[in-house]
């Protein structure tokens, strides 16, 4: 008997007796097997097989098996198929990393691979694929491609070999050598045997993600194979027709393979479009069978076709049809289809062709949120609402999400809270609505409102003075509730501390009432909240001198001054002292209203991304570390103005979000650890970032990533323009950064040639797949600027950086900038990033030194009105002559000192080198300190050059 006796006993036990009885029975059996293995009598093959089989069963029940491996290995070298088979099974289920054993196993595998017996080869290949260890890859990665493409290999072995190679490539890509075999593998797509084609397609799909060039020819082969399947009558596909659907798995795989590549050449593209249309048409035909298998198989192909259409994102016609098809599925009675339709629509919503079409389904999706019984489906509905949200429907979607939040499953509440907070902020036209929404969030799901969310609302209220009075009034009213969430107390405390004066005129919210209201919550709160409230009290001392004594009494009470918590005690002592000795002037300065925060990426967005996908560094934790190093040790936003206190006050990291220094504070060291800081610390962009929180600032470059990318093309483009300006006078720096990706630049230019190194850094811990940066030049630009580059490795490991070199030749002068488009797959979603590459005409400047006389002589020669371009503009930056000089030199021209009779003016000269011409350029910049204006004059021998240089340089001052 084989497992039967063990199984019978054990399963019998499992059903009717205790766990202990089962364990006892199993231990007895294990002891028995062990003694049999150790016994003097050599076991025959059959007994070995029997006992190994028993061990497998015991393992299945969750018991450790620490012996039997050797016996299993011995079975591998048996000549009997059945013994070999059970040996391999044991190894692939139970193998451990015992290196001695691995060598023996590898030896047996080697023998079987060489045996030319297809059954044995199959077993060996299965074992390699199932174990897939690095040692096995080392031993066999070279061998398997040969088996795969050898002419005399049987189909079933080919199939196994293809998948085995795929497995090894997944575990140890470095060990699988590319070579001649790759082209032959591509031709397996034409194989007669559909099983072989399916396996080969899987293999090619994975290989092509890393080596798109090498497998480019697979595209046309895949399209023609797909076309044959889709258009054929189902009868001529051997047995691969599944419930009347011809070869559904192969179709799915082929469609997946095509998603590794951009839309193919026009000839192939026509055929592919035909296929996709046929698939869409078939969806409308009446089903050939009522069986669920039929509809599953048909729809598996259909969904994959839709994914491909979305991936190509180039045929508006197909996109709209895809959207309509998904719309039908949204109302389908099959839950699975509704689920998948919601999921696909999420990606569709980010295509600009179909965003509007997706939006038409909003009612259905909202309904799904309300009525679906299945949490999986509801979650997809939330995702889709989030993806389809834009300014036109934000209020409705946010309201629905808030509604849903009241009854939502606990598992997805936090995510919904984050989504609501992001949407409310992103699409707030009216900030009172935003404040209401966040307070509602805290009311409904206070426990799920993370720090980031309430920090953010404070940040926004402080930055927008039109909403401050409303916010104070609203929090005051919200605090009236007998039981309110601690997060509300925090927000309320902070906001009243800053803006309580705005509502103090109303006798119903007089200073004393405000104070008493807050203090009534004090004792119910945790230490950090109490600490925050103490800061609010000292701010009240400044805002409302009339209640100073009341507050001092509270601070003086034993429960404060002698509090066991050192932080609270310290605050009480210090604040009490401050309120007693400081004059009103000093108090007013120290406790001045918080300055606006520099605008940063919403940390909520970062948090959501972190929830949705793994990422390496958490900003929050980093800033927490910094914060604890702070002298004041404040663990919460302390409303003390940084500019007045000499120590780096906690307010520098008030929101703990890696925010930089407030504008009027000295450079704060606190920001150095932040992830984003190197982008924003650039002087050129810092100014735009410090602008009071206007709408556009919320669309920080980060939003250009993931699903938000195409929603805000104009804003993303504007951000990119600013970045380009940043690089006009310098050659190195960070070009782009979001939560996933950082792009750095390093470039050098000589005469009309240049070389740019682009560094792509993966900031996450997850691989980017099919990472493809593409340089896009308009036709006009292409004739003026020659860019050459090599493709980069399409897989970027987590934390790794890849480099791309672009060789640049300037043929003739140009105005546009090339666009760098980056597409990659991250954690299942497609990411698309576009930034302008800062290659500007002035990069091809060669400085020319000349004396005053020469300069004015040339200046006069260029007096033709087309040669001169002048621009008068307001200074955007402080008018520091040293900085100005540095910028002119950075711009590329020579800075000529003592040339202009007026020493306050700057003049420069240089030559723009292009392949076709060299253009002499003279420039003169006249600052007017009083008016804070500049006049910039450019004279060159070519009108377009004057024009362009003037534009570029004007942006710099």
């Amino acid at each position, binding site marked *: 008997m*084989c497992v039967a006796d063990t199984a019978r006993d054990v399963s019998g036990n499992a059903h009717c007796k205790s766990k202990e009885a089962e364990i006892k029975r199993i231990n007895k059996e294990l002891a028995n097997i062990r003694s049999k293995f150790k016994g003097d009598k050599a076991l025959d093959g059959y007994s070995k097989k029997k006992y190994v089989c028993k061990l497998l069963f015991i393992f299945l*029940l969750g018991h450790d098996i620490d012996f039997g491996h050797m016996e299993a290995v011995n079975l591998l070298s048996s000549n009997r198929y*059945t013994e070999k088979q059970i040996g391999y099974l044991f190894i692939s289920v139970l193998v451990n990393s015992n290196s001695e054993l691995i060598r023996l196993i590898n030896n047996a595998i080697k023998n079987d691979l060489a045996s030319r017996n297809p059954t044995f080869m199959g077993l060996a290949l299965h074992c390699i694929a199932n174990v897939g260890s690095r040692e096995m890859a080392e031993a066999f990665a070279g061998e398997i491609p040969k088996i795969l493409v050898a002419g005399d290999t049987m189909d079933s072995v080919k199939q196994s070999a293809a998948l085995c190679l795929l497995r090894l490539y997944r575990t140890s890509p470095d060990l699988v050598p590319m070579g001649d075999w790759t082209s032959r593998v591509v031709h397996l797509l034409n194989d007669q045997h559909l099983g072989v084609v399916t396996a080969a397609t899987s293999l090619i799909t994975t290989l092509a993600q890393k080596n798109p060039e090498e497998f480019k020819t697979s595209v046309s082969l895949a399209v023609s194979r797909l076309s044959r399947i889709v258009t054929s009558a189902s009868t001529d596909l051997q047995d691969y027709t*599944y419930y009347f659907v011809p070869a*559904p798995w192969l179709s799915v795989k082929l469609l997946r393979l095509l998603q590794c590549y951009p839309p193919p050449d026009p000839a192939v593209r026509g055929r592919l479009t035909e296929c996709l249309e046929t698939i869409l048409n078939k969806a409308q035909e009446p089903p050939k069978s009522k069986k*669920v298998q039929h509809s599953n198989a048909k*729809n598996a192909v259909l969904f994959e076709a839709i994914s491909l259409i979305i991936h190509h994102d180039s045929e508006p016609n197909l996109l709209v049809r895809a959207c309509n098809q998904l719309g039908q599925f949204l109302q389908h009675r099959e839950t*699975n289809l*509704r689920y998948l339709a919601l999921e696909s629509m999420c990606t569709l919503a980010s295509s600009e062709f179909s965003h509007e079409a997706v939006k038409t389904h909003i009612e259905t999706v909202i309904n799904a949120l309300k009525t679906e019984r299945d949490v*999986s489906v509801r979650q997809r509905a939330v995702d889709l609402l989030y993806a389809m949200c834009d300014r036109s429907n934000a209020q409705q979607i946010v309201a629905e999400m808030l509604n849903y939040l009241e009854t939502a499953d606990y598992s997805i509440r936090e995510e919904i809270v984050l989504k609501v907070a992001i949407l409310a902020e992103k699409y707030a036209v009216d900030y009172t609505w935003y404040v209401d929404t966040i307070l509602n969030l805290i009311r409904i799901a206070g426990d799920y409102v993370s720090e980031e969310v309430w920090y953010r609302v404070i940040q926004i209220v402080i930055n927008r003075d039109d909403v401050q009075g409303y916010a104070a009034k609203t929090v005051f009213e919200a605090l009236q509730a007998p039981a309110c969430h601690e997060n509300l107390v925090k927000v309320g405390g902070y906001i009243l501390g800053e803006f309580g004066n705005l509502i103090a005129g109303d006798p119903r919210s007089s200073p004393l009432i405000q104070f008493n209201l807050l203090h009534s919550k004090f004792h119910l709160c945790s230490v950090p909240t109490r600490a925050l409230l103490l800061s609010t009290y000292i701010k009240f001392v400044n805002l409302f001198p009339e209640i100073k004594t009341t507050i001092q009494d509270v601070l003086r009470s034993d429960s404060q001054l002698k509090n066991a918590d050192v932080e609270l005690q310290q605050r009480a002592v210090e604040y009490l002292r401050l309120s007693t000795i400081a004059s009103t002037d000093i108090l007013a300065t120290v406790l001045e209203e918080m300055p606006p925060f520099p605008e940063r990426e919403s940390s909520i967005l970062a948090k959501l991304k972190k929830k949705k996908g793994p990422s390496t560094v958490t900003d929050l934790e980093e800033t927490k570390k910094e914060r604890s190093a702070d002298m004041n040790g404040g663990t919460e936003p302390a409303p003390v103005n940084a500019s007045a206190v000499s120590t780096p006050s906690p307010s520098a990291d008030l929101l703990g979000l890696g925010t930089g220094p407030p504008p009027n504070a000295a450079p704060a060291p606190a920001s150095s650890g932040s992830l984003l800081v190197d982008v924003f610390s650039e002087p050129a962009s810092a100014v735009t970032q410090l602008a009071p929180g206007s709408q556009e600032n919320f669309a920080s470059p980060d939003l250009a990533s993931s699903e938000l990318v195409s929603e805000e093309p104009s804003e993303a483009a504007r951000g990119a323009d600013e970045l380009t300006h940043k690089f006009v006078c310098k050659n190195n720096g960070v070009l782009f950064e979001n939560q996933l990706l950082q792009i750095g630049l390093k470039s050098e230019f000589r005469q009309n040639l240049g070389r740019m190194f682009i560094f792509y850094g993966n900031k996450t811990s997850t691989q980017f797949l099919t990472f493809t940066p593409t340089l896009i030049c308009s036709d006009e630009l292409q004739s003026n600027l020659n860019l050459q580059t090599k493709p980069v490795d399409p897989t970027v490991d987590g934390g790794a950086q890849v480099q791309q070199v672009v060789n640049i030749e300037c043929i003739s002068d140009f105005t546009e900038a090339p666009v760098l488009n980056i597409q990659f797959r991250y954690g299942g979603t497609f990411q698309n990033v576009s930034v302008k590459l800062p290659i500007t005409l002035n990069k091809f400047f060669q400085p020319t030194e000349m004396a005053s006389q020469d300069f004015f002589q040339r200046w006069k020669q260029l007096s033709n009105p087309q040669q001169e371009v002048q621009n008068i503009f307001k200074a955007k930056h402080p008018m520091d002559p040293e900085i100005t000089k540095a910028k002119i030199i950075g711009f590329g021209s020579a800075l000529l000192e003592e040339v202009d009779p007026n020493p306050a003016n700057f003049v420069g000269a240089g030559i723009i080198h292009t392949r076709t011409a060299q253009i002499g350029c003279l420039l003169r910049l006249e600052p007017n300190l009083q008016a804070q204006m500049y006049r910039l004059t450019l004279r060159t021998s070519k009108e377009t050059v004057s024009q362009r240089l003037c534009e570029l340089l004007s942006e710099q001052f």
Partner: protein
Amino acid sequence: MIQAILVFNNHGKPRLVRFYQRFPEEIQQQIVRETFHLVLKRDDNICNFLEGGSLIGGSDYKLIYRHYATLYFVFCVDSSESELGILDLIQVFVETLDKCFENVCELDLIFHMDKVHYILQEVVMGGMVLETNMNEIVAQIEAQNKLEKSEGGLSAAPARAVSAVKNINLPEIPRNINIGDINIKVPNLSQFV
């Protein structure tokens, strides 16, 4: 890629566990338990997909499962697989089991554990779909059976012994397990008979 294939009964007893990514044994057991609790609380007639638990996981992974009479078949897959494709694959696997065991039931999975593994191996290899054509799979299994028979002698004994055991109405198997009841109901089998 398929990361794991778990089959357990309505009480959470594992009947077939196959991992294609290495996990320590105790984690494997935890995964089975966690997955069982995840699918158990779901009604029938809702969708067959759900996000993975904490152990197998990350946002990229999904559990795709089917419930047949007393058994749950759960595949844990990443985003490179088509959800509906995997759903059909489970069906193919179960139909194949049904063909090979002639009305498969939970006990077949226990008594013929090795055979069940061999059948699975013809469908999924190293976490990748190997063959989807049921006739081809059954042909492979039949070829194996033939080989086994031809090797004859002692090796043929286990099969005979098992069927003998099965027929003598095992006293140790609790009476409440009625073999008729736990037949895996494979819908629409008439197609394949």
